[in-house]
């Protein structure tokens, strides 16, 4: 039962997270592309409840430098104007799922105050807003690509493992060949064949397809191994002896044993794909500026100057840790649940 509860909790969390990302326009205080050139790489804004006179306010507020050239720091809070945080404020216009247009944001402060929950990037763009918007591409493309890889893997690996012989030989040598392909050059060619400008939907499909296609060979080999051993187990042989068809055996007895491998593969592939998107962007196949993506947010951490000077640039990475943990938890719970169901 606890596994069931664990799974439910994880799914609720994930649903919530996907909601947050899907409705990024509403939850994000700013537009992902809005630059604030006077304050690049600003640190996170501190939330205050107690003002300079020591008075407590139930509504949190922030201090913002009145002169945009100086950055807000708590030490000179006295010289700065407080900006209370308001909810359901009107701000920049956004679209949700390409359908509804609105300009209501969950929270915000009056201009020219700026609320930057996890700081801003090198152009002074709000990292929190970019994090939420970035998830739209990264979370969905990553998930779809992982599903795609694993489904291909299950088909190829399942057939190879179950039928064995020359089919196995052909499919597995094929997958090895696939692993050995010089992907970088193939991707150059793909990029050259595409038009100069690629729309966002195309980028999305591209990411999902390329990552899915490149990634199927490993799961296929793993699944083949599992199927190979599963089909020789006694209860499978017995079922076959009773006249079960191949389709029945695969569906009922063999493939269910690969669930564990599948789930672990999925949970490993998704984070990998979030990062793979950075490489694809480098080749011009990913989301370009100013569109945000998690891969791009994380890749700025690869710079020594960022790493050594701006601690808040780690915050998007920290936010991703619980998310991936929940993915693993869900996978784990699913696997445990599956085990406890009698075959």
């Amino acid at each position, binding site marked *: 039962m606890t596994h069931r509860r664990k799974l439910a909790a994880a799914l609720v969390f994930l649903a919530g997270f996907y909601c947050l990302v899907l409705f990024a326009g509403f939850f994000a205080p700013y537009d992902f592309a809005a630059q604030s*050139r006077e304050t690049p790489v600003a640190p996170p804004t501190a939330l205050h409840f107690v003002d300079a006179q020591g008075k407590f306010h139930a509504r949190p507020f922030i201090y913002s430098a009145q002169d945009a050239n100086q950055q807000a720091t708590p030490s000179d809070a006295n010289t700065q104007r407080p900006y209370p945080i308001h909810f359901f404020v009107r701000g920049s216009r956004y679209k949700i799922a390409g359908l509804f247009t609105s300009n209501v944001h969950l929270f915000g402060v009056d201009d020219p105050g700026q609320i930057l929950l996890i700081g801003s990037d090198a*152009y002074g763009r709000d990292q929190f807003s970019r994090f939420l918007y970035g998830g739209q591409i990264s979370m969905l493309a990553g998930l779809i690509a992982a599903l795609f890889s694993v489904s291909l893997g299950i088909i190829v690996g399942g057939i190879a493992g179950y039928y064995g012989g020359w089919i196995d030989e052909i499919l597995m040598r094929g997958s090895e060949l696939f692993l050995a392909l010089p992907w970088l050059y193939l991707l150059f060619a793909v990029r050259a064949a595409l038009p*100069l400008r690629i729309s966002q939907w195309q980028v999305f499909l591209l990411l999902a397809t390329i990552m899915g296609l490149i990634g199927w060979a490993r799961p296929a080999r793993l699944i083949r191994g599992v199927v190979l051993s599963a089909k020789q187990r006694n209860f499978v042989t017995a079922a076959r002896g009773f006249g079960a068809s191949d389709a029945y055996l695969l569906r009922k007895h063999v493939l269910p044993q690969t669930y564990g491998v599948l789930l672990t593969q999925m949970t490993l592939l998704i984070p990998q794909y979030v990062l793979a998107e950075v490489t694809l962007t*480098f080749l*011009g196949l990913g989301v370009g500026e100013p569109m945000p993506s998690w891969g791009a947010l994380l890749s700025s951490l*690869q710079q020594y*100057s960022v790493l050594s000077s701006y601690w808040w640039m780690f915050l998007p990475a920290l936010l991703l840790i619980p998310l991936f943990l929940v993915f693993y938890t869900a996978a784990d719970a699913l696997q445990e649940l599956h085990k406890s169901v009698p075959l």
Partner: protein
Amino acid sequence: MAKVPLRKQCVALVLGIGFACSFAPAAPAQANEGRTAASGPTEERMITDNAPGHAGGRLAVALRSEPKTLNPALAEDEPSRDVIRCLTADMIHINRSSLKTEPALAKSWRVSRDGKQYTLQLRRGLRFSDGQPFNADDVIFSFQVYLDEKVDSSQRDLLVIGGKPITVAKLDDYTVRFELAQPYAAAERLFDGVAILPRHLLETTYRDGTFSKAWSLSMPPSQFAGLGPFRLKDYVPGQRVVLERNPYYWKADHAGNHLPYLDEVVFSFVPSEDAQVIRFQSGEADVLSRFSADNFAVLQKQQLTKGYHLYDLGAGLEYNFLFFNLNDLGSKNVPDIAKKQAWFQDLRFRQAVSSAIDREGIVRLVYSGRATSLWNQGTPGDKLWADAAIPHPPRSLDHARQLLQSAGFSWNKDGSLLDPHGTPVEFSILTSSSNAQRMKMATIIQDDLSQLGMKIQVVSLEFRATVDRLRNTFNYEAAVMGLVSGDADPTADMNVWLSSGETHLWHVGEPKPATPWEAEIDRLMQQQLTTLDYAKRKQLYDRVQEIVSENLPVICLASPNILVGASNRVANFRPAILVPYALWNIEELYIR
């Protein structure tokens, strides 16, 4: 000097397109000990004016990648050139600090009155680093190699003047005469970076036709010899190149000490700029150049405690710019782009774009303030040639809107810009993803222009793919690029401004000038090339800069400062704004 082969920069950062500069040459050594006195004339040494130092010590330098060759005629990448510069010498050299020419292997030279004949007097009694004597035959041989079309050296472009290769004749063992087809304004700067090769080592390979394989790094050090301050000692693939003092080097300080002072120079290979910076910060490398303003800021924090010093030399000769595809697209199958050229060709459109760009923002966000905003190609670092009279109009979106309106553009309800036919103005800005600075510039411009209602997409591609689109397929709309002049002289940029030039980026290699103002630039550039008087040349080149700033074939953005760092151990360190910024006087450096 120099002109413009597109060269590949390490796919780490930095420039996209560079000018080949005065690069130097190479040749290492063989230890033919014990033949110092011997025969021949006495050595005519050059006496330097640096503060005398003392011999000994080793200098550690981190290169961003492994040199591809040590052959001066074939080297195109910066790491190769950095090493080759230490191994070879030229006849007349540009002093990177004064930007003037000074004698090197030639102790003096004479120019004929018509400016077409150069007679160089070589130093006597000099020896290559393997102990073999140097004379006019080596010079003749070297020029034969560089001018050979089959060798395809990047120096060849510099040595073809007025469409004809220069000719060399040996007058005696220590005198050579060069004939030019027409007078050449940059004059003896021509000889900078043309490394003299040892005939005794390379003639056979050259005659065999195997020159393209000669002096690859894998050859034993005894196969190399040069006239530079150092000679090759050791090469460990993937790790380092070690150079040792050339005992036959021909310079001495005024206290009578032989140069160079250093015993050894070690070039180690690291994978990225960040790795170079970290090595420098930890003291494992003594010298650092070509790094970003962000890393400068990081290093600055520990400048006092870590025992190094950083130099911000101000603007160099790099200029970054935005340009539109004005190529003749008739033969290319890109109808969408051809349609948009109607906008790009409209001067008012380009002026509006220029007026909308926040150059101050670029300087601040891209270079943390360590750069200068730019309105034309003359960078503030090019003190002798930049035209100070070019106006610097401040950013004005209103002015930009007026210009667009006068060109027949209008705005719809959402604020999107529409062209006179009612088509929304949408285009992409291409840039190379290996250059973080230019990516940032493109992103800033994207935001600036969106305020005019233009819909811009930044398209970043890997470096080669970018260059292929810019130079061959013309499948792009606009692009952000940068060039680094190889010398503080307008001749360095001939290829950019001549309409037939290969680096005439906005309209590559025009068969004849497409516009009257391009025709005028052609005329002015040719004229300055054969004018010998500086004041007259300056006037001509000022006019070129004026035309460029009026017609905006390129919309200049910013010129980054040259940033250099050196350990406090290194004495006589005098960084300069000309390539190679840091180690140009390596023979004068010593360890405190």
